[in-house]
């Protein structure tokens, strides 16, 4: 009898162990993927919400999308990387205004595309972690069954991970704006870049 109970204990311990391994895999396989997926799901939920599609809810919808993005994107890091060597010479007020305007520029450029979501599937294809840096590979299936490769680059800040660059079909967002901004600053000045950004944001 005692032997039987012993066997049962070993058996249940083994099953418990298996469950634990299973759970661990679920929890730890893809920490970064989970973070990106969480934000993406939140945005999809907002843009798919029929109630939110009413014209009078447009501003509220934009605010909610921006809020979801803000939780996962490190705007300061993005702005710093975009301005690159021109960042160091700026004072705090200029930096703050640039971060704000850069965020608005991206919002203006990409929000319409996000809002045009029409049921595209998002496949999470893997992630890499290298110290404080990581990437998450995503494939977005268009309605024409074409896959668009998107790569999120994340950096660890404290206990959490934040996105600082997105590459779409291999083209980096930061590199694109870095080249453009550098060309404007070299040709004229940082003030001119800010003026252009302000006009761009006001128009939107």
């Amino acid at each position, binding site marked *: 009898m005692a032997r039987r109970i012993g066997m049962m204990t070993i058996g249940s311990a083994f099953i418990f162990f298996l469950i634990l391994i299973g759970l661990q895999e679920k929890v730890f396989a893809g920490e970064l993927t989970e973070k990106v997926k969480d934000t993406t799901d939140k945005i999809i939920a907002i843009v798919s919400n029929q109630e939110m599609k009413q014209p009078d809810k447009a501003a509220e919808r934009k605010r909610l999308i921006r809020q979801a993005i803000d939780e996962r994107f490190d705007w300061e890091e993005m702005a710093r*990387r975009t301005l690159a*060597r021109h960042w160091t010479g700026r004072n705090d007020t200029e930096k703050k205004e640039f971060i704000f305007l850069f965020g608005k520029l991206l919002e203006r450029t990409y929000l319409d595309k996000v809002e045009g979501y029409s049921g595209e599937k998002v496949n999470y294809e893997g992630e890499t972690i290298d110290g404080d840096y990581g990437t998450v590979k995503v494939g977005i299936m268009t309605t*024409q069954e074409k896959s668009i490769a998107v790569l999120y680059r994340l950096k660890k800040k404290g206990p959490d991970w934040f996105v600082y660059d997105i590459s779409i079909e*291999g083209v980096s967002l*930061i590199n694109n704006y870095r080249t453009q901004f550098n060309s404007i600053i070299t040709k004229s000045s940082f003030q001119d870049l800010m003026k252009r950004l302000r006009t761009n944001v006001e128009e939107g």
Partner: protein
Amino acid sequence: MKKFSIEMTVGLFMVAGIICLGYLSIRLGKLEVMGGNSYEITAVFSNSGGIKTGSSVVIAGVDVGTVKEVTLSDYQARLVLSLPMDLKVQEDAIASVKTKGLIGEKYVEITPGGSEDIIKPGGRLRETQPAIDLEQLISGFVFGKI
């Protein structure tokens, strides 16, 4: 005595000639002896676009170094870039494989970053942008806009 002196002169002349030839080969062939005054960093690309050893590394359109090695590592292209010792590459610099003109040769362009952390010799340039597959882009445009 006189004979010996002529032989010596010819010998010395030959040695001098060989040294000159060696110097010229090294300079013209851009060979590096004893490490030279350059250092190496690596960069991993998901697509190198067929870049070859000896291709240029460019910053702001200026040739600053060469691609020293191209290998496959975990189904990705691993490039070793050789750069001059006095050139500092920031940790957030971005390396991208580009093409000279539409069908020209491939080269690596580095867009300098603003970070205070500098990539050490033997270090890795983390931010890379693969070669753009023009054919794929055109097919995407033809068969369905991306």
